[in-house]
């Protein structure tokens, strides 16, 4: 009797252990199968531009990038403290527009173009936004945020959005005045958020990538929260594609995500045959017409050609 009870107990224990083996395996299977089923856009490398090329030395560390309609690329070089330009989008055309040796250090994460073609560079150490012509001539500067700010966006009419560390996002009108009608009713001119690492602006919406909570917030034209979506990965720099979809880099995992206008995940950009090693510490990005994508990978810019939906 005792022996039979003991055997039953052992059988029960084995069954429990088998359950403990099978349950996580099944859950894991469901999880990774759903992840693998996310739509993928295949990207093929068309061209690579090392940052330290043309007349740019020494090695640079690019952060955000912006591409003008004529194909000129501008890069915020954080460690070099420079504004770099590749007017023809080629290594040979590389030139330093601002910062050493032309001027003082301008350590910056964020860069944007104004509607009239000027380049705005957000200096991280001061919170100043410096404006330059495309040939590198200094136009003006404005104190729009606090030191430590990492994100900036300018919309089609010239409104400037800057992150303010530990406070949120502020909007300034094209003339540099704060827009006190924008943002949260309790904090005029400010939409409150935790750490902001990416901004992208459209006339009717502002996209805010939040690193602490790993979310993407979508604000309407009055700065009110329209959506707040949980991201699958980490938050990163943003760029709006010509079709209105949103692209976001993820530095730590070397991924690029595609999101719809409401911030929902649409898919990922991968290499041919699903290659996951396509990007290397991706930061800034720009999506162009004709399904072209520029990404700032470590110390080189890469132009990709995108294939397939979404």
């Amino acid at each position, binding site marked *: 009797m005792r*022996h039979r009870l*003991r*055997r039953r107990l*052992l*059988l029960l*224990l*084995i069954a429990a*252990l*088998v359950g*403990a*083996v*099978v349950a*996580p*395996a099944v*859950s*894991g*299977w469901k*999880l*990774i*199968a*759903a*992840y*693998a089923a996310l739509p993928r856009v295949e990207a093929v490398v068309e061209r690579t531009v090392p940052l330290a090329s043309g007349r740019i030395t020494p090695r640079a560390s690019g952060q955000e990038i912006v591409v003008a309609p004529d194909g000129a690329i501008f890069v915020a070089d954080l460690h070099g403290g420079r504004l770099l330009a590749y007017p023809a989008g080629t290594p040979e055309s590389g030139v330093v527009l601002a910062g050493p040796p032309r001027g003082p250090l301008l350590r910056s994460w964020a860069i944007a173009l104004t509607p009239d073609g000027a380049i705005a560079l957000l200096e991280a150490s001061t919170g100043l936004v410096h404006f330059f012509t495309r040939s590198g001539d200094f136009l003006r500067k404005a104190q729009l945020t606090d030191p430590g700010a990492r994100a900036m966006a300018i919309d089609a009419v010239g409104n400037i959005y800057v992150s303010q560390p530990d406070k949120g996002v502020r909007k300034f009108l094209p003339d540099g005045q704060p827009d006190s009608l924008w943002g949260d009713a309790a904090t005029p001119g400010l939409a409150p958020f935790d750490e902001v690492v990416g901004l992208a602006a459209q006339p009717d919406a502002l996209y805010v990538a939040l690193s602490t909570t*790993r979310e993407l917030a979508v604000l309407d034209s009055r700065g009110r929260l329209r959506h707040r979506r*949980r*991201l*699958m*990965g*980490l938050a990163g720099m943003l760029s709006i594609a010509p079709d209105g979809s949103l692209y976001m880099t993820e530095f*730590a*995992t070397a*991924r690029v995500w595609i999101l719809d206008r409401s911030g929902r995940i649409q898919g990922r950009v991968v290499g041919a045959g*699903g*290659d*996951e*090693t396509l990007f290397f510490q991706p930061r800034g990005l720009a999506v162009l017409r004709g399904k072209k994508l520029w990404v700032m990978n470590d110390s080189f810019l890469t132009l990709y050609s995108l294939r397939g939906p979404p």
Partner: protein
Amino acid sequence: MTGEETLPSRPWTTGTRLGWNLALLSLTLVVRLIPAWALQTEVADIEAYHDLGRSVLRGDNIYALRLFHYSPYSQFLLAWAVRIADATGWRFDFVVKLPSILADCGTSLLLFAVLSRSGATRKSALFWSLAWALNPVAILSSAFHGNMMEILPVLILAAYYVLEAASRSHDRDLLLPLSALLLGIAIAVRPYPILLLPIFLFFGRVRVIPVFAFLALLPSALSSLPYFLHARQVFLREVLGYQGMTDFGWAAVIRAMSYALHDKKIFSFDQQAVSDSQRLFLGAYSLFLLTLPFFRTSSLGRALLIPPLLFFTLYTNVSAQYLIWVLPIALALRDRLSLFYTAAATAAMVLFYSIYQHEVLYGRFPRLLPDNRTVALAYALANIALLAVCCYWVFRILREEMGFFLREPGTSSLARSLPPRFIRVYTGFVSLCLGAWLIQLVLVARRAWHVAAVTLS
């Protein structure tokens, strides 16, 4: 199953056994819960676990973050820790330590049960169980560091105990799969116990090897298969590419001396030396497996101590949480060297944390030990002491087993299964392998000397 001869003592009554179990459980819990609750710091592995747990909850590939290098089996523990922390309002760093703390409680109770049933006196059973309950290495690993590695001791100890019990039980047909599944879950949580599998297989019977191996590998294989099919590139990169950190062992001595002599902290070690030491360890481990037939058939526990001790002695990248590997079995064997080992490992851990990760040790409180060259020198000396204990321990086990083989050959499986002529041939083969490994050792030692000279010059 113990290494000591013991005199029978008064039998346990159910009441006293229950009382001691409760006392042990409470003590194990209290000494761990207090620091785990009080530290209130999310650093090192805990910080990574929080990121990983959130990724799992959001349906992300856990390997994408480059922080997880094991089979995906334990990923949902992290996700549950995030859920529980969010639901209760408790700090994540406290919640994620709970599985390790509860596993430590399990180890305390299991040790007590193993020792009380294996002929140990009451005093002895209590002493060695307390040696776990109050073990600083275990407490530092579970309540301070909070690494999931701490779940392993209870599983490995249980697998060992069940396999030992199977050899003298009528329920062998059930106990063997039970032991295999326990070991298998341990392998799925962290891959280190895979080194113990050949020993379990050797000490089990030949007939059951395929079933035992299948069940022991099932948990990791089953949880890894979907990742292999759906996310092969990232999965293989993370699982096969990780080499650990140079925090303890002989390379840590060089690292510490660089700080002590030149005030220069080294955060990564020469990769060639890491690869060399990996090959040296694998060579020694293979050689050890070849010596298993010389072991007494009752020496499963002693054999299980050798792989972790060789790892600590020869490999460069030993992390703090690895130091727990050797303790549960050593305490179950009532091996006094485990006390010296505990002393050296504790000193090395405390000094390491004081220099490189003081938040793990002191949390939100002011630090007790400074981060300076004197502490670095003490850290180097503690590592040397740890290496000395590990080397001597391996030497002692091998010497004793070989001694038994020479004195009483009938106690070893080799002598039981082979005629004397073949034993001589086999012994010659093992000696040849030992010679080859010694040459490898000399070559690696020369390169290590060069690395040390360059680093410290």
